[in-house]
């Protein structure tokens, strides 16, 4: 009853083509943004900003990037963390070497650099598919990390290879406090997420999905594989690159190549598997699940143990946390193999009929 598009007539092309065609969706998204921009900064504490919200947004962005490549264009990749590393190091070097460059421009430059690297490593996708392509992108993971370690120019000859991100200054204002950084990250993520939402329903997005579903058939109906696949790699790497720059500048503050390990690539891949392949919302849900659940367990378990008077040491809690986390992942994959986004979709369909399902 509440969520029904009946009676919403479109009388112009513009109305028919808007990003969220259903009124309830528009209101929902606007409300969500209003809360995120207006209410959260007022009520959340420093811990929430630095330890939960900022990493959540950054990893959502990275997952979104991978989702474009894997979920929409069907190209399995294990190099997301490496593209994040490219973004982080590129943004650092733009700030360092180009005098007076605005930070947002460095972030865009970081994305473009990552996109360029992504295109190079996307070339094999023309010949190999599926798991074999995953192995080829694994090369990106190892090569990029090796490259950043090997050539000290990238880290400005720092003796340890660690780079320390410069201050974030926009129009003379320094984004120093976690709250300001959160707002900056939120702004960038919102813009990029809406752009992605728009992109995947355009002809480009449809071409990606055609390639994903069957590339021979896509070729037959006139989609050129080379530009389509490479564009997917470029856009995906752009998102990962910006995420990497934000990771360095707004979250950790200092990064080393080893931090962008294969482990991180896998985590991003798990985010889109759990959240939902081929769904913008899924990237956010997946990032929330993978990032926040361990923290929640870490806080709840000792409290529960205390409640029942169990002698849990810190290490035991960690072990149990991994156990519960793994079990939950399996549970979700069995109950809903299409990810959390699918649950939301089912919920929406049910809402459409509610309260009279027959």
């Amino acid at each position, binding site marked *: 009853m509440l969520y029904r598009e009946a009676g919403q007539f479109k009388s112009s092309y513009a109305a028919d083509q808007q990003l969220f065609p259903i009124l309830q969706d528009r209101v929902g998204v606007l409300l969500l943004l209003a809360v995120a921009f207006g209410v959260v900064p007022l009520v959340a*504490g*420093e*811990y929430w900003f*630095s*330890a*939960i919200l900022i*990493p959540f947004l950054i990893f959502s962005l990275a997952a979104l990037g991978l989702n474009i490549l894997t979920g929409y264009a069907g190209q399995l990749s294990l190099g997301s963390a490496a593209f994040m590393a490219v973004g982080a190091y590129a943004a650092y070097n733009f700030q*360092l070497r180009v005098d007076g460059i605005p930070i947002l421009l460095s972030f865009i430059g970081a994305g473009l650099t990552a996109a360029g690297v992504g295109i190079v490593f996307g070339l094999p996708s023309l010949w190999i598919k599926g798991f074999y392509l995953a192995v080829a992108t694994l090369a990106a993971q190892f090569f990029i990390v*090796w490259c950043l*370690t090997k050539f000290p120019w990238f880290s*400005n000859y*720092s*003796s*340890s*290879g*660690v780079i*320390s991100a*410069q*201050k974030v200054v926009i129009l003379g204002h320094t984004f*120093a406090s976690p709250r300001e950084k959160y707002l900056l990250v939120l702004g960038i993520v919102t813009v990029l997420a809406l752009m992605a939402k728009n992109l995947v329903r355009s002809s480009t997005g449809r071409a990606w999905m055609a390639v994903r579903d069957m590339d021979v058939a896509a070729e037959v109906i006139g989609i050129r594989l080379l530009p389509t696949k490479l564009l997917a790699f470029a856009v995906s790497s752009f998102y990962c690159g910006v995420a990497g720059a934000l990771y360095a500048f707004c*979250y*950790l*503050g*200092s990064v*080393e190549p*080893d*931090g962008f390990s294969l482990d991180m690539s896998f985590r991003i891949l798990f985010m889109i598997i759990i959240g939902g392949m081929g769904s913008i919302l899924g990237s956010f849900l997946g990032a929330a699940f993978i990032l926040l659940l361990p*923290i929640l367990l*870490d*806080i709840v378990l000792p409290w529960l143990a205390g409640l029942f008077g169990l002698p849990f*040491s*810190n*290490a035991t*809690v*960690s*072990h149990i946390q991994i156990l519960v986390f793994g079990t939950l992942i399996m549970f979700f994959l069995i109950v809903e193999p299409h990810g959390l986004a699918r649950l939301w979709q089912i919920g929406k369909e049910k809402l459409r009929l509610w309260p009279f399902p027959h």
Partner: protein
Amino acid sequence: MFAYRKPLLLTGVALTLLAQGALAAEEQFFPLVSYRVGPYGANGQSFYGGFVDYLNYVNLKEGGINGVKLVWEECETEYNNAKGVECYERLKAKAKVSTGPLHVMSTGISYALIDKSAEDKLPLTMMGYGRTDAVDGSVFPYAFPLVTTYQMQASAIVKFLKGKGGLEGKKIVFLYHDSAYGKEPIVALQEEAKLNKFNLTLIPVAHPGNEQSAQWLQIRQENPDYVIFWGWGVMNQTALKAAQKVGFSRDKMIGSWWAGSEEDTVPAGDAAKGYMSATWNVAGTDVPLIADIKKVVYGAGKGNMQDEAKVGTILYNRGVSAAVLSVEALRGAQAKYGKGKPVNGEQVRWALENLDITDARLKEIGATDLLPPIKTSCANHEGSGMVKIQQWDGAKWTPISGWIEGNKDLIHPLFKASAQQYAKEKSIAPIDCAKES
């Protein structure tokens, strides 16, 4: 009957509450951003076990520091940078009231926290790891690479080898973990190579280092006089076994302090015999303090180590010595800002910058020779720069040298330059150390 009891009961409750309130005010909080599981969990267990044991020991033996009880909360990082930041943020609220120095025992996490801790005015100690140019307190007021740094250690190792019969024209291979940790000492070794005219070859090993045959093949071809070895975790035992395989004598191999614990040598079996390493704390339970901890803390059944046999190992004793320094800093802070009161981050920072732990004081604690004497200042957050060289005899580590100090005149200017570059990159205005007291 109840009418009589109720007010009494209430008064009783009120009194207990009051007493608790008073107690709570006299607690000194330690944020323990630790790790006991994960790839390096075994190392963390010993280090943080020793750390917690000493805090317990101070509580049991003296009832805290001048009556201020030591309390702590642990948060597990699994040696993961992002988790470390999360833990730090979680414990920060409590640490802002009163805090002991923060020990994270991970170079990655300490790098991630170095700016944050300065902003939050919480002192970050990096004992034998972390950002080494933080020795320059004018740029890093809240970071303390206490005792000694990788560069000073490398320099001390070179000095030790020089003492064994000149280095001119000799060949030294530096085999290192290809990460921030392994790369830090390269600059120092290159400077030393120039000064002492030996040939230096750098051979990196990729993380985690459980495959080193190519590297050791190269070492066999080079046939160096010594191998200086900067390994961590599983890389250490692999290197020792690989050295045995290619027939490189282990008594020409000398490791860093993170490559010189029982966790490294015992799994390597007899391949480790004769292997040397640097250390800034000795092993063994015959140090009076360690023996006393065993008696007091473990006697009371409050020991933190699950495996009591590990009490007295290198890493356990390192944890104890880290706690000794932290507690000494708190004593110093209390002496200046009010005895019997908890101290906050700024006050602890002052104390860490004005530490003066003499041999006499170490003797009082019972920690003679457990760690070197330390005297810090604004310009020198390191405070000592001394290590001992120890050798594995197949069953235990035995020190084979006295305290050796690295070449400070050579190394400290490197720190200064690096810190200046950092200050420039981050546009930090350095404090004038001459004005600090």
